[in-house]
């Protein structure tokens, strides 16, 4: 069996923004190991694919539990099974007590956790995270990294995009992308470990905290 979960050879991605064609990737060859926490670093605006987004991308007028259950809805899973699995998934990210909250009743960190719970609902072998901490303050960012590291320990492969060195060092290996090409790869020598996150108290909407 191949030990790689993702392999790309000369991957090219062009997309159109208005009248301009943006060459996001111009020939990327990359391999991701099973269970690896790979970080892709580059200037903001590179490669926008993934399932956990910088913008959270939650449905606004929908509760946390329904947001998380959404992928199951389209997979044809029955309503009680959907709820059970969504609750379990939210439990995993420390939001078991905020099932009925709407996104605008939660902090950015809380919303991102809901997004991670949604990504987890189908028990995926791999999670892609596109600048998951980009819109968060430092403390909430660390909380999210802690959750991602914990999922990685449980065997889920992670591919995370960031342009912050400090965030990148929470992974195993960093791939630098510049101008649509891989410009270098480095193993993280001293992997940072994010302290285990404390569940947000119910009713709190602020995610303030200091840098750790």
């Amino acid at each position: 069996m191949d030990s790689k979960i993702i392999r790309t050879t000369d991957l090219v991605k062009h997309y159109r923004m208005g009248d301009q064609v943006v060459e996001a990737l111009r020939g990327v060859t990359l391999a991701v190991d099973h269970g690896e926490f790979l970080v892709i670093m580059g200037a903001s605006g590179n490669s926008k694919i993934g399932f956990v987004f910088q913008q959270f991308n939650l449905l606004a007028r929908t509760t946390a539990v329904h947001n998380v259950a959404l992928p199951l809805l389209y997979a044809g899973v029955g309503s009680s099974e959907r709820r059970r699995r969504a609750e379990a998934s939210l439990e995993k990210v420390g939001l078991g007590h905020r099932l009925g909250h709407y996104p605008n009743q939660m902090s950015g960190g809380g919303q991102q956790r809901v997004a991670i719970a949604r990504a987890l609902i189908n028990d995926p072998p791999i999670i892609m995270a596109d600048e998951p901490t980009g819109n968060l303050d430092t403390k909430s960012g660390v909380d999210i990294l802690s959750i991602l590291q914990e999922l990685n320990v449980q065997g889920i492969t992670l591919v995370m995009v960031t342009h912050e060195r400090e965030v990148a060092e929470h992974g195993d290996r960093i791939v630098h992308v510049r101008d649509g090409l891989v410009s270098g790869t480095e193993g993280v020598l001293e992997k940072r470990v994010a302290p285990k996150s404390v569940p947000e108290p119910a009713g709190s909407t602020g995610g303030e905290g200091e840098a750790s």
Partner: protein
Amino acid sequence: MKLLESVRTALTALRANKMRSLLTMLGVVIGVGSVILLVSLGSGARSEITTTIQGLGSNLIVVVPFKMNLGGNLMQQGAPQLATNKFTLRTLDEVGTAVGNQDMVSGEIQRSMYMSGGGKRYFGMVTGTRANEFDVRNLKTLEGGRYFSSAEEDSARLVIVIGQTVAKELFGTQDPIGQYVTVKGRKLKVIGVQEVKGKTLMFDQDALSWIPITTAIRLFGTSNPGTIVVKAESTDTVVPEAEKIKAVLGKTLASDEFSVITQSDILGFAQNITKILTYLLGGLAGISLLVGGIGIMNIMLVSVTERTREIGIRKAVGAKTRDIMLQFIVEAVTLSLLGGFIGVMLAVMGSMLYHALFHMKAQVTVWIVLMAFVFSMLVGVFFGVYPARKASRLDPIESLRYE
């Protein structure tokens, strides 16, 4: 995804924008409501007219002193030719001879005028007729007193039979029998009061009064009956008797100086007119339903643009093109069906109000309600498909980038 889930998703989305959903529905509410109400009023009027005409008696033949074409194309009809009235009391006799029974023929001279009595005045219709009028027209329902006799007709006595409204307006709670009513300066003795007849087509059947035709000729200064009514022996003899009358009158009168009309002629004519009226009203209301549908399409298009991001998220987590399509069509259909339902309710209430206010029948039939429902659903599907297609074809990556 199951249909039930789509309905649930659609309801959530509609509830999230309550005001907008309500206003969008309003177009369909008004459209469906007015279609049902107007068609119901139309068919109510139609059945009322039919009942009224049938109430004339199926063996009634009416002869009028002008040309009246009730058959054929209504659009080519033109106004009736109002020739000089050539009917006289002699014409009555001729008609009587033609059908072989003078007792079955009556003439009418009608005038609207002020009548006074009991210290009050009342504007009503006075009909000068023969003594057999009440038999010919099946009016034999007196509440009190009696009709005038042939003898009273022959000697042009000053007597009058009045309707309930006339009695109430002039004499209030007093017994009108034996009192006097002044018409054209002459005092007429009240000898009879008709039973309550009620209103048909807004016309008060109790506002009528009857006097001997000979008296009418003296009071009104005319000797030309405006109408000759004939009671045929049976329904089967109506047509042959009408033919006989035509033949006899044709000898002395020109073809545009008289018309012989049977109940079925009038019935067919009235039904023809009311049918056109009903279709016309229904058509006009149908246009407002169409406008309501365009309103739905407009709002759904706005909604698709506004919810581009939502569509992107749904697609990113696994919604297929047809899931999104279904969601938006169900939203449009839910709006139009809900609007249709409210419209039906309002129309039923409107027709009850109409009945209470004007005492006229409005027939809300199951058929028309079902039609309006099906039509409003079709409006939803028809005007929902285009926005739904637009929504379902959005590129998820583009939509997620949409601000």
